[in-house]
C-alpha cells in the first residue's frame, strides 16, 4: 500500500538553524505515528510542513501520492489540531465545527448532521450553543478535535494535544483518542515531547533530535533495542556502559562490571572497530541473595541505595569492578525486599543486553 504521506529528503532552515535536516519518512495508511523529541528538535516544523504552514527549502511532501509540497493548507486533505486549540472565540462550539464544512460548501441538513455527528463523537452534542470561553480546557480540546474530525481528513495532525491537560485528563484523553481512531480509521500523526504518551498511543515512534530522525520503529523495539545512547536516554534510566572487544570472539568486555558479556543484537557487531556501549534495562535484571540461573549472565554486588517508588523500588547496586547497576524491582512480594548494605546477586538473560552506538 502506498504511504498516505511521503516526506522526501525534506530540509527546512530558519537562518543558520536546520529545523528539519534531510528527513525522509513514509506514513502508512491508518497508522498512528508519533514524532517524539525535546523542544526545538524539529518535530513541530515537520508537522507544519505536512499541514502546509511551512514550505520546505528542499525535498518534496506527497499526500495521497500527490505532490503537495507547495500546496496551501486549505488545499490539503489533512487537518491539524493546534496545541492552543485555536478555537474561533466569536463562534459557538457548533459554529466552530461547522466552519470547516462550510468551506466545502456543505449546508442545510447535511451540515447540521455532520456537525452533530462530530460533536457526538467527542460527547459534546449538548454544548453546541456554548462559546469556547464557557468551556473547560478538556472540553475545548474536544471541540478542536471535533472540528478536525468533521472534515473527515485523511490524516489528523496533532500538535502536543495533551500538553495543556492535567495528568488524569490526559490519560483519559489518550484512551479516547485511541478508541476514536480505531472507530474512524484515520491516520494520526502526533507531535509530543512525552515519551510515555508516544509509547502508549503510537504504532510507530520517530525519535527526533536536531532536525533528524534518530530512530523510527514500534515502541517496544525502540524500548528494547535502542540504536544509540541518545535514543536509549529517551526511554527512562537505562544502564549504559562503555565496552571494548572481549577476549573471546563474539563477546564484549564491560569494564564497569568486570565482565565479558555476550550481546544479543547491535548494529556495530558486524565487524569494524569495537568502540561502543551496551545498554541494559533496569527492570530486566533479576536480583536475589543467592547465585542462581546459570543460563544467564550476572554479577555480585552490594546494595548502595534504595529508592521506594510505591509499585516498584529502584536499587543502586555497587559491583566490585567499580560500576553501579540500576535495578528496578516490582514490589509484588516480600521476598524481593533488600536493604542498604545487603550483598546481592544480579542476573539477566543474554538477550537483555543490547549493544548501542556511542
Amino acid at each position, binding site marked *: 500500500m502506498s504511504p498516505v504521506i511521503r516526506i522526501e529528503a525534506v530540509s527546512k532552515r530558519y537562518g543558520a538553524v536546520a529545523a528539519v535536516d534531510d528527513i525522509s519518512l513514509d506514513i502508512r495508511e491508518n497508522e498512528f505515528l508519533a514524532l517524539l523529541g525535546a523542544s526545538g528538535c524539529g518535530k513541530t516544523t515537520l508537522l507544519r510542513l505536512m*499541514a*502546509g*504552514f511551512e514550505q520546505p527549502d528542499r525535498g518534496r511532501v506527497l499526500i495521497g501520492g500527490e505532490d503537495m509540497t507547495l500546496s*496551501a*493548507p*486549505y488545499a490539503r486533505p489533512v*487537518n*491539524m489540531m*493546534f496545541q*492552543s486549540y*485555536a*478555537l*474561533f*472565540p*466569536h463562534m459557538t462550539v457548533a459554529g466552530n465545527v461547522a*466552519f*470547516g464544512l462550510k*468551506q*466545502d460548501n456543505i449546508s442545510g441538513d447535511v451540515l447540521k448532521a455532520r456537525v452533530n455527528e462530530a460533536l457526538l463523537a467527542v460527547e459534546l452534542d449538548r454544548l453546541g450553543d456554548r*462559546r469556547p*470561553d*464557557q468551556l473547560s480546557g478538556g472540553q475545548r480540546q474536544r471541540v478542536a478535535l471535533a*472540528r478536525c474530525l468533521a*472534515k473527515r481528513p485523511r490524516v489528523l495532525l496533532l500538535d502536543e494535544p495533551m500538553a495543556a491537560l492535567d495528568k488524569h485528563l490526559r490519560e483519559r484523553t489518550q484512551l479516547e483518542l485511541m478508541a476514536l481512531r480505531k472507530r474512524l480509521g484515520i491516520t494520526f500523526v502526533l507531535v509530543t515531547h512525552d515519551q510515555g504518551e508516544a509509547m502508549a498511543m503510537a504504532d510507530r515512534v520517530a525519535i527526533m533530535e536536531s532536525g533528524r530522525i534518530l530512530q523510527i520503529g514500534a515502541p517496544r523495539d525502540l524500548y528494547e533495542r535502542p540504536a544509540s545512547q541518545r535514543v536509549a536516554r529517551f526511554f527512562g534510566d537505562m544502564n549504559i556502559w562503555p565496552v571494548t572487544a572481549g577476549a573471546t570472539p563474539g563477546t564484549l568486555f564491560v569494564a564497569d562490571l568486570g565482565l565479558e558479556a555476550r550481546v544479543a543484537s547491535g548494529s556495530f557487531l558486524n565487524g569494524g572497530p569495537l568502540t561502543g556501549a551496551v545498554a541494559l534495562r533496569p527492570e530486566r535484571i533479576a536480583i536475589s541473595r543467592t547465585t542462581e540461573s546459570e543460563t544467564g549472565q550476572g554479577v555480585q554486588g552490594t546494595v548502595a541505595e534504595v529508592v521506594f517508588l510505591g509499585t516498584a523500588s529502584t536499587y543502586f547496586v555497587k559491583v566490585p569492578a567499580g560500576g553501579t547497576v540500576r535495578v528496578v524491582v516490582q514490589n509484588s512480594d516480600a521476598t524481593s525486599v533488600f536493604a542498604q548494605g545487603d550483598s546481592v546477586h544480579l542476573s539477566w538473560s543474554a538477550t537483555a543486553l543490547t549493544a548501542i552506538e556511542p
Partner: protein
Amino acid sequence: MIARGTSAGSGRRLVLAALWLWTAIVFFLPFALVLKISFAEAQLSVPPYSALFERVDGVVVGLKATLANYGLLATDALYFKAYVGSLGIALIATTITLILGYPMAYAIARAPSPRREVLLILVMLPFWTSFLVRIYAWIGLLRPSGVINTALQAMGLIDAPLVLLNTQGAVYLGIVYAYLPFMVLPLYARLEKLDPALLEAAADLGAKPWRTFLSVTLPLSHPGILAGCLLVFIPAVGEFVIPELLGGPDTLMIGKVLWNEFFSNRDWPMSAAATVVLLATLIAPVMLFQSLRMRAEARP
C-alpha cells in the same frame, strides 16, 4: 482581607473621583454655560446675551428663557444643510480612512518586530508638528502655483493648473490625512492581539485567504473598527480648520457655521443652540458604540 478590599475600593474611588472632577471642570461646567446661553437672547452688551434670570436687588424674581434660537435652527434651512453636510462629509471621510487605515494597521501588526516599531512611530510622527501647520502645508501643495501643479506642469502632463485647493476633495483629503492615525492605532492594537494560530486554523479547515479574512480577522477586529471610526467621525463632524482652509465656498459644515455665528455675527445664543444640537447628534453614535461594545464584552 476586608481591610485590603476597603483600601483598594477607596483607591479606585479616588481615581474615579479625579476623572469625574476633570470631566466636570472641562465638560459639564462649560456645557452648562453653553446650554444656559442657548436659551438667552442676543443683545449688544458684554457679554453679548441677555441674562437668564431676572434679578431685583440680587433676588431672582423670574426666568427669562427663550426657545427662539432652537426654533430658528429648525426652520432655517442653512443650519439643517450644514448639519447634513457635516455628517455626510464626516461619514465619507471616515469610510475612506477605514479603507486606507485597515490595511495599514494589518501590515504593521504583521510586521516583524524591529520594523513594526518603526512603522508605528512613522504613523505617530505627524503629531510632532502642529495640526494647523500641517494643514497649511497642504495649501502649499494644492494651490494653483503649489508643488503638485508645478510638478505636473513641469512634466508636461497638464497645461493649466488644476483646481485642487478650496474644493470638496481637498476637505476629504485633509480630514483623511489628519485623522488617519486615529484609525490606524486602535485597529493596530486589536489586530496585533489576533492569534496567528486562528488564521492558520481557518486555512487548515479549508478557508481561502479571503474567506479567512471575512470570517475570522474582520469579526475579531470589530471593536477596533468601531473605536477607530468613532475617533475619526466625531471630531470630523465638528471640524472647522480643515473646511475653512482647504474647503471651497460650497463646503457647508456646521463647524464653520458655528464660527461665523460666534465671531462674525456675535450671536452667542444662536451659536450655543447650534452647539447643543450638534452634541445631541453626536451622542447618538457614541451611545450606539457603547452598547455595541457592551454587548460584545458581555457576550461570553
